[in-house]
């Protein structure tokens, strides 16, 4: 796709991108000197970006063409053998994402003005929000893998800064560090994926990569590894199964931050990436994605049930919902996954801001301290209730539409490949559990009797600047899914669009065979070491990747209806149970907790992931680094300059290592020199006799050597 973006669109997109960055720069240098510490400036700038975003969105709505895409590309690094460019790709998906990021970011800016009023680093906080918005918008707009990676890491940086905003608390700085490092591990996988693609295809641009995939230049296991590699990035950023541990700790940051980053935008980046690069995932890769998503969804939902901290509960709910979206994409439900991304962004942001306003009022995050706030905080309660209804998938609200589509897609996938029916079933259960724990939160926080009189006394409704965003989000949570505009605009891309070479359709079995042909003509022999564990299902069932086989369209429709019915049932059951446990207190949560104590402990300890990682990953690296240091100071240094250095008072292992190995090597090079020196010096006895003896002796030896050799 040549650069066919009209000039005015280019300017407005670049403006959208750079305004928050300008905000960041100004805040960092002159923030404190501005009136009201410049919060109006940042909010204003993100506001303008939002308006421009809405204009662009309306424009795409106007065109209303699924295949709509405009692109512009500039050269960046060109050193002969290596060429990289930077560019903007604007299609329907980008428009939607601009809208979502813009709205949530703007509302969070507004909310923060109230929430962080009087904070010691008030202006710097808005600066960080600015750079976050810039990175997130950049990530959404970029048209090549390298730019994606650049913005990917910048988003990681801004989350580090924002989580660690109140760095006086050790837990906050630990959480920030943990977030950055965990996502970085994911980024390693992503970079490896990028390297594989670049090494094979020589380009980073999405369109050129899709074209190459379409032409079959790359395929089979190499493409799968690249896909899995890129997906690792998503695992890290969207807190999927192995690397999800950082998200709950990230709640240390201010609540608006959690709302913005850990609900709506940043964590969604992973889903967006899978969506954007959908075409290069081979069936095997898609299966891996599906199962990872599934495990995450189920696990997170189970943990959310037992959480007492409101923000932790919402965090685990987010992880679970993300698992939902990832599974959707995994089973081929492209539109379903991205649709859920949008709707989830709105109602989860609302939930977080709601909890923020509650915390702001009650000054505690623990649900046991709350209860009965309905009367004290009506607006917060009603908006919170709307969001909970949406997330539980109550028909009519946005959540229902997107979650239903996901269940439909997974059922269709399950029906086609019977061995994968488990996906649909578990998703269904999770839907129910979601409804249960969300309503548990509502009951514990807003309904029932206030458990802490003193806090309840001075609880009060949040000021307007905080409630307005709540209401706006509530409206969006309800209405954003109506009208089916999303399904029309965001349609699953086909490889065909990108096939450049006039390849005769006689390609054996169209895409069908391509997965199997598995021509391994990749010049690069790849023995990448991504562990096989990730590779869920070896025998590669091909899904109906590309659309077009209309024969079983009817089957999809039927699956859709079944899914809708079952999802409503599940939601209802969940709400009922929550009401029984916490509303009417018919069953006491206490007894259940006692009887299933083991399970409860396991869940409350979050399956001991944190402990395993702390001992396993962090512990071993620190131990290896201490061993490296000891090795460096004793053996390498000791051996070379031969100092007889005693490792006193060192751990038993190092001590053992020290006595056995180092004593042997203690007289290193310089050591021998000084030792020789001492020996030779002794023969210099100062007595003349020995001199003469020495003289003749050595001369004689030399003579004999020569005689014997010579003749």
């Amino acid at each position, binding site marked *: 796709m040549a650069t066919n973006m009209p000039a005015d669109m280019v300017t407005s997109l670049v403006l959208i991108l750079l305004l928050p960055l300008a905000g960041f720069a100004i805040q960092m240098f002159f923030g404190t000197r501005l009136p009201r510490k410049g919060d109006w400036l940042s909010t204003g700038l993100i506001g303008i970006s939002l308006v421009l975003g809405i204009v662009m969105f309306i424009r795409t709505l106007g065109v209303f063409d699924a295949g709509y895409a405009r692109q512009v590309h500039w050269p960046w690094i060109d050193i002969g053998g290596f060429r990289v460019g930077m560019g903007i790709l604007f299609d329907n998906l980008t428009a939607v994402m601009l809208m979502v990021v813009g709205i949530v970011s703007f509302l969070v800016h507004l909310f923060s003005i109230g929430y962080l009023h009087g904070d010691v680093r008030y202006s710097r906080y808005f600066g960080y929000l600015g750079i976050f918005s810039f990175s997130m918008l950049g990530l959404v707009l970029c048209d090549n893998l390298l730019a994606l990676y650049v913005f990917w890491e910048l988003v990681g940086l801004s989350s580090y800064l924002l989580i660690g905003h109140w760095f006086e608390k050790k837990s906050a700085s630990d959480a920030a560090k943990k977030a950055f490092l965990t996502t970085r591990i994911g980024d390693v996988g992503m970079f490896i994926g990028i390297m594989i693609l670049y090494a094979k295809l020589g380009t980073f641009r999405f369109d050129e990569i899709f074209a190459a995939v379409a032409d079959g230049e790359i395929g089979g296991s190499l493409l799968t590894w690249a896909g899995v590699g890129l997906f690792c990035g998503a695992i890290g950023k969207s807190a999927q199964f192995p690397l999800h541990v950082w998200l709950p700790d990230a709640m240390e940051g201010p609540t608006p931050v959690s709302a913005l980053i850990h609900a709506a935008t940043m964590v969604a980046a992973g889903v967006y990436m899978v969506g954007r690069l959908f075409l290069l995932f081979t069936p095997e890769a898609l299966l891996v994605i599906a199962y990872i998503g599934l495990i995450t969804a189920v696990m997170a939902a189970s943990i959310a049930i037992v959480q007492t901290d409101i923000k932790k509960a919402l965090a685990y709910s987010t992880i679970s919902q993300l698992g939902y979206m990832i599974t959707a994409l995994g089973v081929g439900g492209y539109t379903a996954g991205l649709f859920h991304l949008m709707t989830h962004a709105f109602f989860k942001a609302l939930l977080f801001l709601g909890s923020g306003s509650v915390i702001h009022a009650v000054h505690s995050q623990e649900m046991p301290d709350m209860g009965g706030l309905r009367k004290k905080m009506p607006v917060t309660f009603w908006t919170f209730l709307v969001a909970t209804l949406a997330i539980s998938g109550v028909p009519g609200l946005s959540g229902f539409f997107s979650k239903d589509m996901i269940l439909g897609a997974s059922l269709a996938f399950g029906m086609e490949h019977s061995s994968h029916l488990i996906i649909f079933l578990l998703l269904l259960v999770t839907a129910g559990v979601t409804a249960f724990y969300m309503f548990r939160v509502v009951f514990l926080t807003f309904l029932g009797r206030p458990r802490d009189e003193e806090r309840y006394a001075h609880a009060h409704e949040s000021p307007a600047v905080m409630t307005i965003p709540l209401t706006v989000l509530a409206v969006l949570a309800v209405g954003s899914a109506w009208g089916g505009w999303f399904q029309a605009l965001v349609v699953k891309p086909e490889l065909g669009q990108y096939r450049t070479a006039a390849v005769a359709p006689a390609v054996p079995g169209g895409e069908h065979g391509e997965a199997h042909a598995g021509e391994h003509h990749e010049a690069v022999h790849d023995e990448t070491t991504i562990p096989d564990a990730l590779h869920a299902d070896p025998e590669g069932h091909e899904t109906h990747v590309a659309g077009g086989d209309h024969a079983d369209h009817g089957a999809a429709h039927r699956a859709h209806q079944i899914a809708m019915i079952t999802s409503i049932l599940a939601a209802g059951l969940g709400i009922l149970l929550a009401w029984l446990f916490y509303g009417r207190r018919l069953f006491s949560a206490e007894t259940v907790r006692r009887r299933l104590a083991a399970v409860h402990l396991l869940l409350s300890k979050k399956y001991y992931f944190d402990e395993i990682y702390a001992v396993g990953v962090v512990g071993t690296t620190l131990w290896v680094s201490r061993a490296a240091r000891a090795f460096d100071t004793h053996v390498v240094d000791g051996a070379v300059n031969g100092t007889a250095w005693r490792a006193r008072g060192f751990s038993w292992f190092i001590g053992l290592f020290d006595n056995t190995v180092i004593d042997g090597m203690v007289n290193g090079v310089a050591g021998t020199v000084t030792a020789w020196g001492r020996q030779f*010096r002794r023969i*210099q*006895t*100062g*007595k*003349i*006799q020995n001199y*003469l*003896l020495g003289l*003749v002796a050595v001369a004689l030896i030399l003579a004999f050597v020569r005689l014997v050799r010579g003749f």
Partner: protein
Amino acid sequence: MIPLQGYLVIAAVLFVLGLFCVMTRRNAVTILMGIELILNSANVNFIAFARYCAPDIQGHVFAIFVIIMAAAEAAIALAIVLNLYKRINSIDVDEVDMMRG
């Protein structure tokens, strides 16, 4: 007729005796005697070669010069020995090891 090797053997033995004397005696003067033995052995060599091998008697001239040098050397050596004797009342070479290492 006395073969050349006869003289050479005597010279060689004398040389070795001189060397042995130098190495084993602790008295500086005895060492000087050892040196004289060595010089004498060299002279015997020269004269023997002048007689048996060389076209002319240049060996004799060399021997004369060696004898003169031996005298000069004895003079210098004794002067130094006596000087040292005045300092440390003994010329036992073993004690002359203040500088070492």
